[in-house]
């Protein structure tokens, strides 16, 4: 085993002189007066390995001994991860002692002695390859598949498989024979290096299904596909995190992995205080039962921040391999990019734009490409959908992280300062934002088949309405209220109606915070119906009050349970208002 000694310390970059072979991304432990600090090799030059330490290096002295592990940064995969709160290195935060995070304290992500009710899926003599399901155990409510470890790259024959019964996590549940006759014992646990994608699936088609998030401005206007990618850039205070939390609560996914990457600790606390109490709107179970939180807040060591998004992605891929619909949310990928920048700077690399490393776009697109809709070896579909928040410096969407992400993510939800300032939440800009999936024939077909036969054309009609409203608004601002034809005022207020009723959503109201697709369809059709009419006005001063009464009636509908008597009352009221001025 290679060992080394510390030669230099610049914050969390430590130079280690080594006496043997080391690998890029190899994990080592630096001994600081008996405390072992985990570190990762990020560059090797001669006999000096440059390592990034996942902990504070305060007090570290040159000459301290270092041990290398011959392994890359790995996650431990197996039943028991659901509902857990891990740090970026997959330490179980609940298992840690004391109020503070003490450096060098690493906890086991899974309890080796936990017991699980195993049911075999394969039988002796079956042929299997990496990722094939050997059996399953119930974990919370999901049937957690025990798979042939992804690292086993041969073809195997099942030599023996455990009978139905209760086993410990680390008990052998199967013995597999490789093509050379070698035997391999398999337990419920396996390890995988986080920086490498898990590729144990048969094919990865283009996404074709829509994933409901419950957020109208996304679902109706710019839907994200299951297995798709999206990102939400926005200046601070525009509601990135609120939007991510809202999606995590209401999205139609089997499970949610939330990577809180370099953000506020109180926001994570909100997740794990509220999720155990909140119900999953679709299954009625507690939200925490379908959630794993990877939490590396802004004050936790910066190198572990980079690791945290990879840890989250690897766990997502693992659950996808069980045929589950996984939604991965990362808040925020900019912090991860900044962590890369800090290290690149300490290594005195030549900087790219804004001092970010030159290969930042490549790193980002590599990461985004790990998501996707897949058919597993047995034909079962599974998916990882990824929505990342981006925090552009100065709110400038031309900065490197946003630009690099824009090249790779297919949905763009731009959060706008103007909308946030006028409290139009969620502040997703309806004009700037787009979903490339709306252009996919398979997605359009899916939408028309599953929502309504005219859905895609309705959505484009809504988009046109917004655009024309904006143009009319601009003209009114330039020429004045009476300087434009009366119809401009109508156009402006029709788009305002659509904005207030469909796009704006009260994330803190128990009814309005999540809208099922059926209701979204109903409301959009209602809004479009109202907007298709022409109305008669004597002067522009009548337009605003008239539309305000319509908006008010429809807002009340948004706050009420769908199709209840009171809901219908307001709809009747709306129809009466419409009839008052409708051009016959």
């Amino acid at each position: 085993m290679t060992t080394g000694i510390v030669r230099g310390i610049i914050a969390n970059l430590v130079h280690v002189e080594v006496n043997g072979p080391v690998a890029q991304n190899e994990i080592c432990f630096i001994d600081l007066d008996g405390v072992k600090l985990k570190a990762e090799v990020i560059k090797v030059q001669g006999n000096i390995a440059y390592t990034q330490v996942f902990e504070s290096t305060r007090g570290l002295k040159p000459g301290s001994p270092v041990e290398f592990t011959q392994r890359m940064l790995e996650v431990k995969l197996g039943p028991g991860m659901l509902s857990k709160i891990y740090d970026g290195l997959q330490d179980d935060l609940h298992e840690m002692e004391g109020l503070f995070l003490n450096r060098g304290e690493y906890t086991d992500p899974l309890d080796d002695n936990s017991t699980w009710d195993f049911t075999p899926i394969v039988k002796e003599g079956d042929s299997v390859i990496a990722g094939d399901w050997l059996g399953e155990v119930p974990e919370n409510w999901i049937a957690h598949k025990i798979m042939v470890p992804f690292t086993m790259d041969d073809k195997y024959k099942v030599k023996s498989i455990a009978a139905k019964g209760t086993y410990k996590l680390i008990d052998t549940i199967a013995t597999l024979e490789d093509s050379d006759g070698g035997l391999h014992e398999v337990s419920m646990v396996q390890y995988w290096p986080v920086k490498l994608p898990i590729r144990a699936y048969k094919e990865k088609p283009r996404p074709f299904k829509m994933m409901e998030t419950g957020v109208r401005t996304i679902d109706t206007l710019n839907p994200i596909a299951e297995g798709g990618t999206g990102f939400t850039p926005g200046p601070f205070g525009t509601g990135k995190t609120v939007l991510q939390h809202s999606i995590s609560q209401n999205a139609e996914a089997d499970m949610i992995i939330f990577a809180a990457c370099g953000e506020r600790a109180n926001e994570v606390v909100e997740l794990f205080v509220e999720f155990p109490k909140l119900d999953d709107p679709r299954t009625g179970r507690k939200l925490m039962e379908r959630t794993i939180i990877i939490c590396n807040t802004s004050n936790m060591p910066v190198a572990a921040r980079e690791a945290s998004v990879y840890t989250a992605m690897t766990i997502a891929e693992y659950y996808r391999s069980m045929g589950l619909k996984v939604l991965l949310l990362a808040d925020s990928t900019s912090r991860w990019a900044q962590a890369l920048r800090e290290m690149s700077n300490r290594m005195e690399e030549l900087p790219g734009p804004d001092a970010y490393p030159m290969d930042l776009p490549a790193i980002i697109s590599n990461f985004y490409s790990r998501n996707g809709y897949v058919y597993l070896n047995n034909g079962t579909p599974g998916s990882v959908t990824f929505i990342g928040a981006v925090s552009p410096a100065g709110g400038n969407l031309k900065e490197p992280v946003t630009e690099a992400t824009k090249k790779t993510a297919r949905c763009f939800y731009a959060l706008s300062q103007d909308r946030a300032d006028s409290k139009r939440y969620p502040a997703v800009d309806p004009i700037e934002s787009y979903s490339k999936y709306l252009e996919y024939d398979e997605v359009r077909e899916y939408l028309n088949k599953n929502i309504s036969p005219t859905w895609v054309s309705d959505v484009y009609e809504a988009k046109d309405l917004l655009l024309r409203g904006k143009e009319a608004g601009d003209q009114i601002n330039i020429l004045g209220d009476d300087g434009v034809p009366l119809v401009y005022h109508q156009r402006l207020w029709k788009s305002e109606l659509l904005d207030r009723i469909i796009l704006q959503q009260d994330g803190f109201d128990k009814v309005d915070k999540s809208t099922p697709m059926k209701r979204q369809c109903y409301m959009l059709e209602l809004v479009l119906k109202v907007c298709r009419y022409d109305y008669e006005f004597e002067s522009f001063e009548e337009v605003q009050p008239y539309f305000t009464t319509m908006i008010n009636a429809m807002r009340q509908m948004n706050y009420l349970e769908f199709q209840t008597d009171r809901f219908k009352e307001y709809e009747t009221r709306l129809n009466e208002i419409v009839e008052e001025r409708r051009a016959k």
Partner: protein
Amino acid sequence: MTSTAFQKVYTKLTQITKATCTVKATGVGFEELATVSGRLAQVVKIIDDSVTLQIFSGTEGIGTDAEVIFFGRPPTLKVSDDLSGRFFNAYGDPIDGGPAVQGKEVEIGGPSVNPVRREEPSELIATGIAGIDLNNTLVTGQKIPFFADPDQPYNQVMATVALRTHADKIILGGMGLSNDDFLYYKHTFENAGMIDKIISFINTTDDPPVERLLVPDMALTAAEYFAIEKNEKVLVLLTDLTLYCDALSIVSNRMDQIPSKDSMPGSLYSDLAKIYEKAVQFPAGGSITIVAVTTISGGDITHAIPDNTGYITEGNLYLRRDTDIGKVVIDPARSLSRLKTKVMGKKTREDHPKVMEASVRLNADATRARTKMENGFELTDYDERALAFAKDYANDILAIDVNVGTDEMLDITWELLQKYFTVEEVAIQDDLIQKYWKKA
């Protein structure tokens, strides 16, 4: 800081810059303290036997034969109840003529709280300032800065907040504070008869800028002592963090680091997060709340300092001089307290969130009307009413000299809404209208 037995003394400096020096030495730990010719310094880089030290008070007059003595420990603060009512410099030494404080010696800038050991902040901090309590309610364990132009009275507002809140301890961390402002704080606290709850760590403009880097950690170490050991509600006031960041950029520049946006070090986000994330609500009842000041230039919040701060803190407050009423107000359109939803309507009256939303929205309509007016367009009746509302709203609610309870603020706002608008324009849910809209 005199030399004691068994300490190695080094006298061979190989490099001196404006803020750092490098010495050949062995057995030195990272972030360890030292003195260079009697001046306090801290290890910031070690490559083999070359140890780079950042000298807090600057390197003027340091010779290549200067005596370097290492302490074998990072910076510390002695904490005990005796800190109360005292004034210290950035090193934690008394500057009020009193005796040195005895107590437990703890490292400053210690580890982070395990997120799962935190409690969700849920206790309201009433300031009596309606622009804050009504529109941007503060919560214990929150961190929030004022983004203020240098000419705005942010120190007065901070002092007002300190005086009106019912915190158990108030810790003032002054960085680059002018001596006048320092004396202002001192006199205000003394006159209010609350000097015993106040602890101050002060770096004034007379002191070397790099010393400031110690101030937040000193203040927050003291805060942790009272919040954890004594379960007290601690309010930490930090002013001005822009000057702190300037000191950071000086040091990183002297260490030949590649600057990122606006000449700030690439690690600015992490550096600031380390300070602000010390704000916490503990399960045992103690809490640390941070109210800071970040001065901005010409209202530009895209500069790296306010920008990074905004991403870290739980909201931000803006001051604005309202020329219609000739008073300083808390700007409702731009200010935001992210934690307000945790208490609004839960710890306050049920109508609070909706009343806040409606009034802010109608106030924004007034802003649009004002733009129209300035561009010479005719105003509609609605525009006129919105403008009249905005003026009363600024005077009765937003102005920082308004000091009333939250229920009263709500009643005033309802009155204003009713005076200028119709039920439809206000657009609040019917059940609240039924209850609070006075029948004619």
